[in-house]
């Protein structure tokens, strides 16, 4: 069977997500192993200029447009993508494992009767087949899987693969969608006041019990501000109601892998470590020198967060000013 790869692109507020650009780069790598073509599919959004996609090595995109589809609608999106994939004989579907991709990937898999591998962080090509690696138990273990079906749906963990710039000419086709199925429809997006989300952030500053009281998280927020970082939290402080669950990092929260993770007043319970251990650089600030967080930290300061944080904020401001 001839291989053909379809990259499902994601837009929010007419912007293509960075995670989608990463997915294009992976599709490009896949295409070299399989000696095949790849194309993009985009649904919704007031987008007419696709040159940005061309900069990331995509040379063909089909855009299904309808103003009712500018926000996500699971049934309509599933139908459009699966029918397009079937009609054009795509057998591999790649998508970023964002909240959008996580919802959509399994739905497309059902329609294509495809095996699905989600949240992939690594892959290799062996004996003519891909082997996908992904974290399980929030990163306490890794599983390598193979998909046995002809059709395959693969979702990739954001912030894991690089979006590689390589300019190519892009051909686009816009198709107007008539009467989409809107029986499940997003009617509004409530944005959390413009802050960076932990799942997408390149830098995260997290606070735990060591911050002592909810009002002290102002220091965590200030440090996050100067670093242009997202704020995170341990389960203990979320359960105590100090911070919203959307900030929780760990096994019953989010699994993250930013470039820099700063853990303040977090001792490092096993379920927290599971969620952030794949961060590229970890800084721990904690009073207790025996706290487990120091065992996985690249850099640590054993000391009082209330004394260290203001200095750290000042020093980073100084660095940024240089």
């Amino acid at each position, binding site marked *: 069977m001839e291989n053909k790869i379809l990259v499902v692109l994601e837009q929010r507020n007419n912007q293509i997500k960075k995670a989608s650009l990463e997915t294009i780069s992976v599709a490009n790598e896949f295409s070299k192993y399989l000696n095949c073509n790849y194309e993009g599919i985009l649904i919704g959004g007031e987008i007419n200029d696709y040159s940005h996609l061309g900069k990331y090595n995509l040379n063909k995109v089909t855009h299904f447009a309808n103003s009712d589809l500018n926000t996500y609608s699971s049934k309509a999106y599933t139908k459009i993508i699966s029918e397009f994939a079937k009609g054009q004989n795509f057998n591999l579907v790649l998508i970023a494992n964002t909240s959008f991709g996580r919802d959509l990937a399994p739905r497309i898999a059902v329609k294509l009767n495809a095996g699905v591998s989600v949240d992939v962080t690594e892959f290799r090509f062996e004996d003519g087949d891909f082997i996908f690696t992904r974290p399980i138990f929030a990163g306490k273990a890794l599983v*390598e899987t193979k998909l046995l079906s002809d059709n395959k749906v693969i979702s990739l963990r954001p912030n894991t693969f690089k979006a590689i710039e390589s300019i190519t000419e892009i051909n686009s086709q816009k198709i107007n969608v008539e009467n989409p199925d809107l029986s499940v429809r997003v009617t509004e997006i409530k944005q*959390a006041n413009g802050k960076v989300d932990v*799942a997408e952030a390149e830098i995260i500053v997290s606070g735990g019990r060591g911050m002592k009281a909810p009002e002290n998280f102002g220091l965590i927020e200030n440090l996050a501000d100067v670093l242009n970082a997202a704020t995170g939290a341990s389960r203990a402080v979320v359960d105590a109601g100090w911070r919203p669950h*959307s900030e929780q990092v760990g096994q019953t929260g989010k699994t993250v892998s930013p470039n820099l993770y700063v853990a303040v007043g977090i001792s490092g319970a096993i379920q927290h470590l599971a969620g952030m251990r794949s961060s590229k*650089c970890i800084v721990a600030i904690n009073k207790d020198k025996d706290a487990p967080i120091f065992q996985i930290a690249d*850099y640590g300061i054993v000391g009082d967060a209330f004394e*260290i944080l203001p200095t750290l904020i000042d020093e980073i401001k100084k660095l940024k000013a240089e």
Partner: protein
Amino acid sequence: MKIVVCISHVPDTASKINVAADGKSIDQNGLTYIINPYDEFAVEEALKTKEKFGGEVKAISLGSDVNKESLRKVLAMGVDNAVLLKTDVVYDSFSLAKALAAEIKNLNPEIVFMGKQSVDFDNSITGQLVAELLDYNSVSVVVALTIEGNKIVAEREIEGGKEVVQTELPCVITAQKGLNEPRYASLKGIMAAKKKIIEEKNIDLENPLTEIVKIKKPPIKQAGKIVGNDASAVPELVKLLHEEAKVI
């Protein structure tokens, strides 16, 4: 209203996970199991829905006899009855979802709840698979839910915010932490649960579409450098982050 809630039985989140000798499964030695934490929110929402509209809540779990422990727990919380679909636990979500969907189809419920993911294999796809197989509407990762007549308004968590989703019954909802505060089982509930019967059915799963090649532990991270013991270490830390790690 006919309500179904799906229950997964998973290793405690405080557990250390080790690889078994076959290199393809988890070492069961010393593992204690609990109800999947996200399923507790699903159960609570199912019970609240029953309290509002009347009807019956049925719990379904797929796995072996040990799953009865979690089923007993939800019966004690107030679930009316339970069925255990007995099979060897497999990794492949697709074949599990097909078995669940077949059972749910027979029950023909208006609404199905389950946790947004099981905290073992973390696939986070079973709810959507079941919904598509049944051709039900569905919303995943739900943090707020209102049902009026057959209309549903749900809020689902996305990066940096929430999506407000409108749909109708029949529907599959996957629960995220924050949806509600799960109740504790009362003593009366625990006593009543002992008398409730857990129906058991042996089932065969379809051929899986995925195969496990290997399970392994993540690479061990070496402990790094303690830069100092007070605020005087901060300039050195910032220098290291800027020049050595190059992350700021």
